[in-house]
């Protein structure tokens, strides 16, 4: 065979250095992180508030995210449309995302607009109007959004899964809440959540981009220095929830496929097993060539794709396999996934499989830090989880140090097929009979929207 037909090697790995974070803090507690990065005149501005849907009161699911939606519906001198127009004149818009542990407000704009962007952002968090009429309008949109999502198989599956796995714990509901909870929510609840949870003591401002010419900290100080709010405490305990090993079947008559979630509780981001779990996931289902995607897609062709992931939250996490399979293959796919979870616990992975997973994680790591937006998202993780600055620089050596015995050890402790919850959103007339043959209780379910 000529040399031209011999596959070249992967080449020399390139080192990863996370850019330096210039840290300052205001007297009110606001942390200001500036990360000069890149030669393109962009600046990504992110304000991270370490409060999220985990802080929703038990009878007000959806409050954190409704508050997020309402913050930029009028602030200071600007009404709801006025705020949106002000960002649009800068060529950008404000994204407000509310997750389990944090609310992030971000604007991807040009570097020369950074001062005006900070002014607008400060106005949104410090002086939101939170008016009753805007509240009623936004709540109505939210209720209609929930109605629409109740027909989306993936969203239905996510809801059923998170409530089965986390139960009554603060992480056991979706960000958008339920119609019932929203109807009980008042504008005063929103004002209360804003006053009690959104303030400088729990906030980090992250500016990434071509910001050499601007004194970001001085600009931030001008608009955030007088930000004054007394923030209540947030306490999210580790969940204590009995495993729910049932198959929850959500009937969707006429469905073209079955949407599946299979998984259980897992550790939070601070676990010492983090790097071993990342390697485990790469072997099991994190990549195209992982075991589960190979088995369901590349061998059987019964799905467009199947993957697994750990959702590492602050106080705890969850592990899940997600896929959508053709209806007549539903029970078989459930069996196959559970079998693959079990196989991770039975024997150490082969050296070649470990090497391949490890290499893809370490050699490809540099790709995560190409753009200002990627660096901002990474820095946001540091802020949300309180991780040290060298977290990303330590990733490659930490992954390289993981051996097959460690992967087996964390698999035996953290992958528990016998305790896994199975959610099937599909046509019961096609799937139920075969599912009853699996040795698990079959439960008809209908998650609340």
């Amino acid at each position, binding site marked *: *065979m000529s040399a*031209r*037909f*011999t*596959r*070249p*090697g*992967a*080449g020399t*790995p*390139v080192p990863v250095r996370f850019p330096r974070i210039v840290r300052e803090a205001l007297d009110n507690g606001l942390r200001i992180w500036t990360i000069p990065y890149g*030669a*393109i*005149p*962009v600046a990504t501005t992110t304000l991270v508030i370490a409060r999220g849907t985990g802080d929703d009161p038990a009878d007000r699911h959806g409050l954190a995210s409704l508050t997020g939606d309402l913050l930029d519906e009028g602030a200071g001198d600007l009404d*709801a*449309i006025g705020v*949106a127009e002000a960002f*649009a*004149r*800068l*060529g950008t818009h404000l994204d407000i995302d509310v997750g389990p542990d944090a609310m992030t407000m971000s604007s*991807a*704009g*040009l570097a020369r607009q950074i001062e005006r962007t900070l002014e607008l952002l400060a106005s949104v968090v410090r002086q939101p109007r939170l008016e009753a009429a805007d509240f009623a*309008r936004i709540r*109505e*949109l939210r209720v209609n*959004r929930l*109605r*629409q999502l109740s*027909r*989306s*198989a993936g969203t239905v599956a996510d809801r059923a899964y998170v409530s089965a796995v986390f139960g009554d714990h603060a992480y056991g509901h979706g960000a958008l809440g339920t119609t019932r909870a929203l109807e009980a929510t008042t504008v005063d609840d929103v004002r209360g959540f804003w006053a009690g949870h959104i303030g400088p003591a729990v906030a980090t401002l992250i500016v990434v981009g071509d910001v050499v010419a601007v004194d970001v900290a001085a600009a931030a100080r001008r608009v955030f220095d007088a930000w004054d709010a007394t923030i209540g405490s947030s306490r999210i305990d580790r969940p204590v929830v009995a495993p729910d090993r049932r198959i929850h079947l959500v009937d*969707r008559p*006429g469905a*073209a*496929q079955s949407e599946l979630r299979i998984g259980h509780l897992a550790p939070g981001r601070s676990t010492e097993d983090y790097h071993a779990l990342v390697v485990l996931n790469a072997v099991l289902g994190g990549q*195209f*060539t992982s075991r589960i995607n190979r088995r369901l*897609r*590349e*061998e*059987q*062709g*019964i799905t*467009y794709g199947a993957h697994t992931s750990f959702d590492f939250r602050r106080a705890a996490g969850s592990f899940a396999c997600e896929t*959508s*399979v*053709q209806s007549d293959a539903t029970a078989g796919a459930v069996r196959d996934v559970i079998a693959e979870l079990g196989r991770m616990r039975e024997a150490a992975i082969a050296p070649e499989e470990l*090497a*391949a997973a490890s*290499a*893809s994680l370490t*050699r*490809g790591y*540099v*790709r995560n830090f*190409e*753009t200002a937006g990627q660096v901002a998202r990474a820095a946001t993780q540091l802020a949300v989880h309180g991780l040290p600055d060298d977290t990303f620089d330590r990733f490659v050596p930490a992954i390289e140090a993981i051996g097959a015995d460690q992967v087996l050890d964390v698999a035996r402790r953290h992958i528990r097929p016998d305790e896994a919850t199975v959610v099937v959103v599909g046509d019961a007339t096609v799937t139920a009979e075969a599912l009853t043959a699996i040795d698990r209780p079959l439960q008809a379910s209908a998650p609340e929207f």
Partner: protein
Amino acid sequence: MLSVPYTRATLDNGLDVIVHEDHRMPLVAVNVWYHVGSKNEQPGRTGLAHLFEHLMFEGSAHQPDGYFGPLQEAGAALNGSTSPDRTNYWQLVPAGALRLALWMEADRMGWLLPALTQARLDTQRGVVLNERRQSYENRPYGLASFTLMSAMFPPSHPYHWPTIGEPADLEAATLEDVQAFFARYYHPGNASLVIAGDVETRAVLREVEELYGGIPAGEPVLPVETPEAASAPRRLVMEDRVELARLYLAWPSPPLFGADDAELDLVSDLLANGRTSRLYSRLIHERRVAVELAAGQTSRELGGTFQIIASAAPGQTLETLEAAIHDEVARFATDGPTDDEVERGRAQAETAFVYRVQALGGFGGKADQLNAYHTYRGEPDAFQVDLDRYLSATRASLREAAARWLAPGRATRLAVMPAGTIETAPGDAERVEGGRA
């Protein structure tokens, strides 16, 4: 001034090669476009271009075990996609893995067929049928776009059918079909290769000559013929498993880079995208008769469609939305936008274009855009020229574009009704099913 400098060369077998140096990160994007998409298919064999794209990842003569493994182990991200007009493949790799990525692409460009077996075709046929179920059939409103396109373009026009294909056609595709498709469309003269990132141009060009120079040339691919006559506007209704009725309005519009293409893109934002848009203000914010809105100018090589989509608030009829939308479009076509609206549109275009030259790889990264401009305009570095189309738009040009293209009588209308409520649909519509008009 946006500038993405490049060097372009053409090999003897017809392969266009474009190299762009960017040394900010130790990364290289390798991006290949084949100028073939679902527009090159024949009725009865729809979906073949996309099914073929799947087979490109299953292995080739000298790497028969599949495409993903060696590249993932080298730290690559990789993917591909098929549109009506083209098929693209990309990998973003650490700089040291450039030769591997180039070699992998060369092997499947030149020597795919020995590894393409009946078993692989059958498996990927299953995968694609499941992709169709997941992305369209099992999704609320998932078949609406198919229905609209089949109504907008007559059966002899290649935009009449969806890129994912009709299930019966996918079932019917044979090994001979895919082999013939490869021979006709997958050769160097119908492809272009972009390498962007931490590379040295002369060394890369030498490597490309070495790896791709021996791939045989193929027959030139002739432009696709399209029928002269466009479809007449229609009024359609379909049922779906959804909660809220939704209205789709679609107008025939200019092709990619045609006159008024950029103007209509801006018009779509000003009319219906985001909270600053006119229809958001009127229909969602003030009157509260709609709950979701979107608009877009989708422009392709052989033509375009301009769409406005609105979901009705509970208790509101689609007639209300339709009348209000035509009313607002007519006001725009008469008075044009305000100076402030034009300024906002320009500002957003500038930001979007600057952000587009950040990432090297992936869908829409610099390498992908160099290939797009090369394929559609013959000039890879058309970034500033493209942006200038947006920056030169005026109140008058936007008003005129709306007036020229968006008259109510030119619009095809599709009403998607929640199952069981079709009797409340607008009364003047023909009922359609299964994503076909």
